[in-house]
């Protein structure tokens, strides 16, 4: 079986990271400095979440269809509900949903199988590039890249532009700390990653691997 890779695999590889397997996926464990990376998550850090399995859905009467599958379906446009452990289901349109598996990849796979049999469901491959911008100073990076007024964030998914690319933003606290997911078309992933990484580094942050995200980082003394 050919492994699925992140759209920014070549950008990550250029920084000689330590890779690790996460299910069928290969992800960056760390960039060689796990201690600093863990600390950066509380301050300012950028991580790649692109390889998480996703599924897009368009169709007719999808909310009812998903509810029949036992899912908590977001009622409002752009609202988000949890999907399994660490996953999410976001309502992107009246009849459009995005599902992302957290640790329960098999749940998504079985759902995909079940929905494939439904005539009214149109299954869509979602290969989005997805990054996590975490830390107390994440606003410094957004200030340079995004014209959205985060003070007026109503919750859920926000469509806006980041560094000139159409993106989907979602606040996604990490271990209780503020963090934002930034999703875009995978083809723009390499550009957006590099733009965000450069600004993150300029602002004193850094790119981090998955190990840093998994840890429960103690609150910063500052």
């Amino acid at each position: 079986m050919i492994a699925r890779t992140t759209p920014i695999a070549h950008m990550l590889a250029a920084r000689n990271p330590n890779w690790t397997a996460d299910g069928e996926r290969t992800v960056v464990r760390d960039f060689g400095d796990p201690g600093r990376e863990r600390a950066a998550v509380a301050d300012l850090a950028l991580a790649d979440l692109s390889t998480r399995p996703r599924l897009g859905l368009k169709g007719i009467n999808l909310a009812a269809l998903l509810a029949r599958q036992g899912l908590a379906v977001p009622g409002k446009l752009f609202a988000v509900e949890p999907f399994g452990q660490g996953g999410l289901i976001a309502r992107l349109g009246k009849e459009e949903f995005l599902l992302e598996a957290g640790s329960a990849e098999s749940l998504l796979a079985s759902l995909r199988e079940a929905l494939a049999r439904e005539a009214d469901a149109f299954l869509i491959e979602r290969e989005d590039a997805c990054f996590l911008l975490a830390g107390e100073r994440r606003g410094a990076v957004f200030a340079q890249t995004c014209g959205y007024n985060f003070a007026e964030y109503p919750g859920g998914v926000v469509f806006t532009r980041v560094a000139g690319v159409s993106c989907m933003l979602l606040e996604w606290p990490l271990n209780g700390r503020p963090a934002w997911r930034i999703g875009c078309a995978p083809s723009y992933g390499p550009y957006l990653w590099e733009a965000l990484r450069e600004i993150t580094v300029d602002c004193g942050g850094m790119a981090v691997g998955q190990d840093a995200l998994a840890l429960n980082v103690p609150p910063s003394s500052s």
Partner: protein
Amino acid sequence: MSRRLAPQPGEWIDRNRPVTFRFEGRPYSGFAGDTITSALWAAGVRVLGRSFKYHRPRGLYGLDGSDSNAMFETRDVVNIRGDRAPIEEGMDLRAVNTFGGVERDRLRIMNRFGRFTPVGFYYKAFHRPRSLFPFFENQIRRVAGLGTVNSGKALRHTPKDYAFCDVLVIGAGPAGLAAALAAADAGARVLLVDESPRLGGSLTWHGNLDDSRDRLADALRRVEAHQRIQTRTATCVAGLYADGWAALIDRLRLTKLRARAVIVATGVFEQPAVFPHNDLPGVMFAGAAQRLIHHYAVLPAERPVILTANDEGYRAALALRKAGAEVVAVVDTRPEGDSPAAALLKREGINLLAGRFIARARPAGGLAGIRGVELCRVDERGLPRIEQRAEQLACDAVVMSVGWTPNDTLLRMVGTRMEYSAEREQFLPVELPGGVFAAGKVNGLVGLEDRWADGLHAGQAAASALGFGAAPGGSRPAPAGPAINHPYPVSDPDEGKNFVDLDEDLQVKDFRNAIQEGFNSPELLKRYSTVGMGPSQGKHANLMALRVLAKERGEPLAGKQITTARPFSTPVALGHLAGRIFTPYRHTPAHAFHTERGARMMFAGTWLRPEYYEVVGKTREACIQEEALHVRGSVGLIDVGTLGKMELGGPDAVRFLERIYTGRFDNLKVGASRYGVACDESGVVIDDGVVARLGPNRFYVSTTTSGADAIYREWQRWALCWGLKVILNNATAHWGAMNLAGPRARQVLQPLVDISLAAADFPYMGVRECRLDGVPARVLRVGFVGELGYEIHVPAGHALGVWNRLMEAGRAADVRPFGVEAQRLLRLEKGHIIVSQDTDGLTQPFEAGLGWAVKMDKPFFIGQRSLKIHQRRPLKRTLVGFQTDEARPRTMPRENHLIIEGKEMIGRVTSIAYSPTLKRTIGLAYLPPSMTAPDTRFTIRADGGELVPARICRIPFYDPAGERQRMTTPEEDAR
């Protein structure tokens, strides 16, 4: 000689942090917090720069961010404003616009030629002969100007950011502080911005005569403690727009701020007195002298004369006296009075000469300063009577306080109506746009209590307009008391240069001449004289220019307007505007392979694609031709991931496609695909692609690379307009795609997929969903390059793996990657068009040879009505194939070269290349229909005007029967 004073209360310098720097090659030192100007003035340097045109010595003048003659440059940074820029350790500064240094500027001789170079002289002197104008223009630009940009300096990214607030308060003087506190107390999020490095405005330098300092300290404590107030100092609001968008400029960046309401509390700019030699070092504003003392602890002058038309001059005199200066006299244009300020002055023993003006200043040697002034009497309005000479005073400086003008540029920018008040002798805002408020001195208020109350009122009004708190009760304070502005502080004798605009070296007589020549309105006067076009944007000159204009025309000032205010109000470095450059680009999933394999990448829209794969020792053309030959002879793999990829579903999917495309799709079988052409309403070809039917109501459609996003938007629009039940999805980036093409393609692909690729099972133009080494794939049998070909689409995350797998599996068959240029050559050999290369913004399908793909008998498709009209008319041009007479013309024609008959242009080339397979140069071109018969001859005008003979050929040039793209196996042939 050091002019540094003993520590002053509230001074801005940090005496524990000395800073050393160089100016004009000499070492100097100052303290952290010093500006360049204050540090140099403290070190006794009087000549800080040279003037724009006459190269006259200039010094400190306003110390308010608008000293355009005290500008400096380092190796990398140009036009540094010395009165704002802090000194930095190791700075190596030069004055701008000198030839041989600021002291010995060789162009100081220009001062003697003033009478030959009046304003606008170059318009008259150098426009004939016209051919020589560029020469003179160059010379003028060299002589007059500002700093020199070092284009070789290292690229420095300047960040550019976004910010938001409820209420933006511009100016942190007493009115601004009060407004910020009032708005924040009401519940609004406030951003308080000031151009100075510290908050407080005039409170920071008015501290010696009243309770300003205590009031400031209290206000700052409250501002700092307020949760809803953010402050930005050393930040200039350079642009303000009516929708609350403000451009904030600080040392590093441009901030694009969106505010829901704006309070402009920007205060005032002092205005100069005009008298001969009023530009020389030592002549300065009273505010400048006081800021120098209180902010930087620097003595402005040893023996100054104060020229004033208001009590502010008295304040300056007292401050100077207290700092240790010997104040020679206070020259007051008003008659002698008995105000408390006058009494205070007398108590201090300062000589007050009332009812006088400065007729002229006496310059020191080399124009390096002032050595005295000659006074004259004034009339009952305070206007100078220069024929009535009075005292002569020896002094080393003239400190002026003859009036102010509101710093109203931002107010004007957003559409505020300002009117001149003859009573106050200044402009005042009379009508503000919604969401914009003004407070403090900009409203003509003078007294501290009035300004504070006005700020509170504005803050409450702005907050309540946004729904925070109640509207302010009572009315705003109104300007009261005697006017503080002199109506015409000008001494204009026949000799000596008296400057109105120090930026542009404009004297009173320059305006008089311009007006006499007919440039007699503010806008015309500005354009002819360039008043207000310098670095200070006329902050010290515009009002005076208007006063001169009114006087010369014998008209009142009331009713007149200064010129339109446009962003930016202050010079902004281009680097700030450029900021960090965001130029998004797109990678296909196989990008890493291409770069590792040595591909020369090219942009196709925002996509990066392999143009060709470089081979050491071979030319570009050779590489491309070898790639093409390899596809013809063996098998090649090209990344076509950039193709637009649309998914369609729903019960009306077929009806939708029937309307979008010119061809017929209701009869397309599941598992088959068909070429589709899309037109706009005028019948112009806008896109093409392959429509593949995956299920009864499920389609997968490719579009052109550049058209994908626009096509998807159009499709969404049409789906809504038509009310069809169709599901649309732009899958372009989410699916990778590659085309495996060549006679050995089947051999490479068959072992990897779980379907039969035999021609009988998977014929030409078929489509199959299958697994490729476990990965879900959509495979289309297409023939764009004219060989057996499989276009393989897989989810983007697997595409690189699939690509590598194909390369690996095809090793035995010698599979090689090929780039965009080889593909363009291969498709040209087949006569396949590329939309937007072989079509243009007017091409309809019948001209492009696509009539076969247009089914006019359908009930409807976009563009059908227009095409029916086209059908009734004769064609004007037709796309045809051609070959050049010479296999390889000496001058190779290129795309868009014209086809010429006699002197007429009769067509143009759209595609052309040398075909290594056919061993001749072939192409596509538009020609009149009368010239499309095979072997018709014509000429192409190539580069350099060379005419290249060619003749019409039938297309396809290669494999006209299409046998190779339908290729069957020997076994199938046998069957």
